[in-house]
Structure formats: structure tokens, C-alpha cells
């Protein structure tokens, strides 16, 4: 099977959606003949015509606002915010209308639409091209917020997002656009609001999503060399949240670290940490830690490597998970197997 980049997988998903459902329209800034600044819409105008994939005036609130009206008339608009930080002008439409219309109308008007947002850093972008805006959207009831980490998921989740009766904010980890993987057209992976375990491990759960899943997997590899078994959970759906899969993993490992690029303060990881603590308190052997960007505006490109959470920062967090409370070294899971914990640590 051919290796496909995430950008190509997204392109295939749009292509198949356009081909299968005449109510799908794709529009935004430069998504027409150019194919989008990341080429995610490459060739769609040529194949499906200006009527189905087109450039709109440069105005994000207008793009999302008109999509609301189109969805009211029965279309399934898929709109693109060119970059994360350029989605902010549309924020009022997203929060006040996209998210609330179904509720406002007691379910009489649903808005099946997708807002695609390339997000996150790591591409050497100058200011306004690297924000992680997921928490803003995830905090808003009435939206589905999802983010794929692999090309296969990118294809499947975007197809599902287009078919969803609910509005979906589809966050595309732009630094993973060129990641390759196998994609079979028409094949669906897990439902988009389900988290999946990407790697099994018995000592600690790394909870990641979008761009940081690959980083978490790299970390797991490095930790394995030191004898620590890292389980990696890829959230995929940020809202609604798959409590069951996440809690199940953490109950098995007893330790958890959430990893994202966004500033940690008030970030999405705070929600994850709280939910895990509420559900897994008696299984936890250490506080749930968050690893993310610093609480600073996104840095300029030559400094971004210091900001983005990498393998070392995550390994450091893992090292702080109170391993001293165990009789045996990390790698052979204690506690769960019934080994006694040192008395002094039990109540701590």
C-alpha cells in the first residue's frame, strides 16, 4: 500500500466526501486554484469545479458566518481557517452561533459543518502561525473538537467530521502534515471521539494528541531503553472526551503525564489531569503532571525549540513521578501486582 502524507490523506478525504455527497462544499482563503497554503485542497477545484471548492473573500467571521447560513439550507460546508491565529476573527461566529444554534432552536436546526484549522508550532513560522488554540474551542459546549495524529486517522476522522450532524472543529497538526503513513481510501479507523492506545506499557501513561503523539511515542522508545514501560494514549477527540479509555489506561499504570504544545496554565491538559484524578485517584501513585509550552506568547522561530515539549522534558516529568515510593525499579510494575508500598509513602 502506498505511503501517504497527512496532508494528502486530508486531501483524499475531502475528495471522497465531495464525490460522495453533493451537499459538501469546500471554501476559504486560497483553497481554490492554489490548493491552500498547505495544499490540503490541491486539485479539488479542478476536479469538482468552482461551485464545490472556491476562494472566498478574506474574512474569517464572514467565512464561518456564511457557512452557518449554508448549513441552515442543507449544505455541508467545510471551511478552512488558513492558520490557527487567523481563526480568531471568526471566534464570535463559532461560539455564539456554530456551537449554539442546535441548542437555541431545540434541535430544529443543526449545523453540519467542519472548520478546519491547521494548528500548533514546529514549522518555523513567524508570529501568528503556530498557536495551539484547542482549549478555546474545547471549552465551548456544542462543538465537537478533534485532532488526528496519523494519516490514516486524518483521512477517517475528516470523513466522519464531514458526515457528522454536529459542527466539528477539525484541528490539523500542521507540523505533521508531511508525516507518512498507510492510508486506505474508504477505510475508517476508530470513531473520532474515541481515544486509542498507540503503545502499550505498564509503568506510566502519556496522554497526548495531535502533534505531540509522535513526541510521546519517541519518548516511550527512549524510556523503554531505560526500562520504563510507557503507554501512549492518543486522545483524538478533545471534546467530547473519552474518559473511559483514558481512565482505563491510567488505572493500569498508576501514573500519568499529559503532553501538549499549548501553554500549561489554563490549558487543555489541566482538564485532562483533573478528569484523570477524579476517576483514578486511588490508583494514582503520583500526581498527574502536565508537560507543555511555557506560559508565554508563542516564541519566534529561532527560539521555538526551547518552547515545544520534547522528549527530554517529558522524560524529566516521568522521572518526577515519585518512583522512590516503589520497592523495585521502574520497569517492573509495583502496587498493581500487590507489592506492599513503604508505609511512609502510603498516606502521602
Amino acid at each position: 500500500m502506498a505511503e501517504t502524507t497527512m496532508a494528502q490523506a486530508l486531501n483524499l478525504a475531502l475528495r471522497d466526501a465531495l464525490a460522495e455527497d453533493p451537499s459538501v462544499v469546500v471554501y476559504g482563503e486560497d483553497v481554490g486554484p492554489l490548493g491552500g497554503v498547505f495544499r490540503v485542497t490541491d486539485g479539488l477545484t479542478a476536479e469538482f469545479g468552482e461551485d464545490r471548492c472556491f476562494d472566498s473573500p478574506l474574512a474569517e467571521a464572514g467565512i464561518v458566518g456564511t457557512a452557518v447560513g449554508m448549513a441552515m439550507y442543507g449544505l455541508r460546508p467545510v471551511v478552512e481557517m488558513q492558520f490557527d491565529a487567523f481563526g480568531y476573527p471568526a471566534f464570535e461566529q463559532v461560539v455564539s452561533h456554530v456551537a449554539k444554534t442546535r441548542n437555541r432552536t431545540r434541535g430544529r436546526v443543526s449545523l453540519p459543518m467542519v472548520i478546519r484549522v491547521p494548528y500548533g508550532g514546529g514549522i518555523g513560522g513567524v508570529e501568528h502561525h503556530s498557536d495551539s488554540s484547542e482549549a478555546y474551542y474545547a471549552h465551548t459546549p456544542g462543538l465537537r473538537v478533534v485532532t488526528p495524529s496519523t494519516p490514516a486517522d486524518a483521512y477517517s476522522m475528516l470523513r466522519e467530521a464531514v458526515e457528522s450532524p454536529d459542527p466539528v472543529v477539525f484541528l490539523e497538526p500542521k507540523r505533521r502534515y508531511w508525516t507518512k503513513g498507510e492510508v486506505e481510501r474508504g477505510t475508517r479507523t476508530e470513531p473520532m471521539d474515541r481515544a486509542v492506545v498507540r503503545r502499550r506499557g505498564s509503568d506510566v501513561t502519556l496522554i497526548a494528541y495531535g502533534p505531540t503523539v509522535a513526541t510521546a511515542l519517541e519518548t516511550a522508545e527512549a524510556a523503554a531503553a531505560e526500562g520504563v514501560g510507557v503507554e501512549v494514549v492518543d486522545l483524538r477527540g478533545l471534546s467530547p472526551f473519552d474518559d473511559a479509555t483514558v481512565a482505563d489506561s491510567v488505572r493500569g499504570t498508576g501514573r500519568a503525564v499529559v503532553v501538549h504544545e499549548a501553554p500549561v496554565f489554563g490549558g487543555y491538559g489541566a482538564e485532562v489531569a483533573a478528569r484523570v484524578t477524579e476517576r483514578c485517584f486511588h490508583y494514582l501513585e503520583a500526581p498527574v503532571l502536565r508537560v507543555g509550552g511555557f506560559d508565554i506568547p508563542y516564541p519566534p522561530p529561532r527560539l521555538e525549540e526551547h518552547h515545544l515539549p520534547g522528549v527530554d522534558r517529558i522524560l524529566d516529568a516521568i522521572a518526577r513521578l515519585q518512583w522512590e515510593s516503589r520497592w523495585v525499579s521502574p520497569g517492573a510494575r509495583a502496587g498493581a501486582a500487590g507489592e506492599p508500598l513503604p508505609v511512609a509513602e502510603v498516606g502521602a
Partner: protein
Amino acid sequence: MERTDDRPDQASPPLPSLEPIRLVDQRGRRVDDPVHHSPDHAVLLRLLRGMVVGRRFDRQAGALARQGRLAVYPSSFGQEACQVGGVLAMRADDWLFPTYRDSVALVTRGVDPVGVLTLLRGDWHSGYDPNRYRCAPQCTPLATNAPHAVGLAHAARRAGSDLAALVMMGDGATSEGDAHEAYNFAAVWNAPVVFLVQNNQWAISVPVRKQSRAPTLAHKAIGYGMRGHHVDGNDAAAVYAVVSRALADARAGRGPAIVEARTYRMDPHTNSDAPQRYRDDAEVERWRARDPVDRLTALLRAEGRLDDAALAGFTQEGEELAADLRERMADEDAPDPDELFAHVLAAPTAQLTEQRAALRDEVRKEAGHG
């Protein structure tokens, strides 16, 4: 390949007139307009009936607000020519995008008055089926309904329909970014939309002079390559004629338009406003002399088309609507807390199901203690 042009490739639309288009003057005498013809007497009578009934609804809603039966009521007293003229100019399959101010427009459109007041009573955020009446929910964030109308009208046109959309917005709302974006999208897409700007002179306490330096708000249309029309918003015949024509142009593919209807908000912004802090009674009295209902009544009487019996009939209809409204609004049925979770997403999430159970529990315990 796309192509650009060295020169503008289209002519400028004509400037709107500084003097508003008028078909009936303040004293109820006909005025000639070179372009717009007065609607016939049957339409004029429908306009009058709609205004009389609409005003009665408005007065009743105001009373309900004072009695605490509505959380708040933004009155359109004095703006009936816009509310009724705008709506009666629409076809049944056209779509209306109203604001909080436009309850009378919705009643004129045939929406159940109790459904119209659901928002203001605080039972739910909207109380009617938008698809049934082709009326979007009343919109509170200023101008944000305008791009919805553009999107819907564009989608309809694309599907081969010739329906049009009428957006209602206030003078203050024209300063919002969403208004600008909607005007521009409408013009670029040639979407069949008419933006009816009810310039009632005030945005809460701020006069229109502080909103815009445009000669008229209709002039804003020119920069987008749209037609702009400036109409006397207390002349129901003129509003009807101008909006009808603009809708016909829009649906025929001749482009969207801004219609500025110059009118006046006779009442406070809402029942909780204090207009004595920012405007003179004398100004209100000046506008009272331009009352849209009196004006059309005078015309129809002078032309022998309205007798006491007919007018009493309209009044009676208004009284019946008000009595029915009083009776049905007295019903104290409490809204169902379960519904809070019912429409957030198409299917309930695990979290919402859990939260609904928790709230049920709270409600049950409270009832037990009560």
C-alpha cells in the same frame, strides 16, 4: 487561470438620495417618486392592519415585561412601518433574519406570538421552528445574523431557488465587523439578500452620528458595489415599495442591497433603559407627529378606503391577539431542566448523560425539601 484587470470592470452604483424616498408625507398626502410606485389599496390596508395589530402586540408585550412576566422587552413602537412593510414585502418562501428588536416583524410573518416571546420570557433561547416560518432565531449579537443570511441565500441560489433573504439590523449594528463582512460577501457572491437597516437614531444611548460619518447608512452600500436605498422608515407604503423592489432585484440576480429606513425608537431601548439620561422628550414628541399608523390611516381615510368599521376591525383583531397572549402567558408551567442537555449535540455524550442524572437528583432533593 485567474485574471486581473488594469481598470475597474464595472460602473459605480448610483448614490442613494439624501432625502429619504417617501410615498406618503407626514400628513397622509401622496408624494410622487420617479422610481417607486405606491402599492395598491389592498396592500395599503394590509399594511395598516399589520401595524395596528403589531402595535397592540408590542404594547401588550411591554405590559407583560412591566408585570415581570417577560425578562425584558425591546419595543419597536414607532418602527411599525419597517417591521410590517419589510415583512409584507417578502414572499412566503423568502427567509427573514430578525434581531431582538423585531418581534412585531415575526408576528407579522405569522409566527405564534407566544413562540416569539419565548426568548424574552426566558423559557428558551428561541421558541419557534425556523424552517416552518422561514425565520431564523432572533439574533442578539449585533450584525452576526447578516452573514447567515448571505450563506443561506447563496446556497439557495446555487440550488436553483429564487428565494431571497431579508436581514434586519439596527443603525448601531452597521458599525460591527460582521456587517461589513456580510455586505462584502453578499456583493461578491451576488447573493439575493436585502439588508434592512432600521435607523431608529439610537443604539441604546448612542446617537447614530457617533456610529458613522457616512452621509446615510445606505451610502455604505456603494463601497461594496451594491445598491443603497434611503427610505422614510415611517412611511409603510415607501418601505414596502422599496423593499419589494430590492428583493425583486436581488432574486433576479441584479444584486443585494442595503435599505436604510429612517425611523425612530419611541420607547426606551428596553423596559430597563433610562432614556432621560441621554435624550430630550422634545425629540420624541417631534417624531410622534410622524407616526406611521396615523399617517397611513389619514391617507386611506382621505381616499375613502377606510371607514370606522374597518379600523375597528383591525383594532378588534389586535385586542383578541392581546387577550390570547395575556391568557397564554399567564400559564406558569415551569420549563423542564432535562431539556438543558437535550440539544447540545445530536446525540447525548456520556458526560451530558451523567450531568443530566445529577441535575435530576438535585431537583428531586430540592422538591423533597420544598
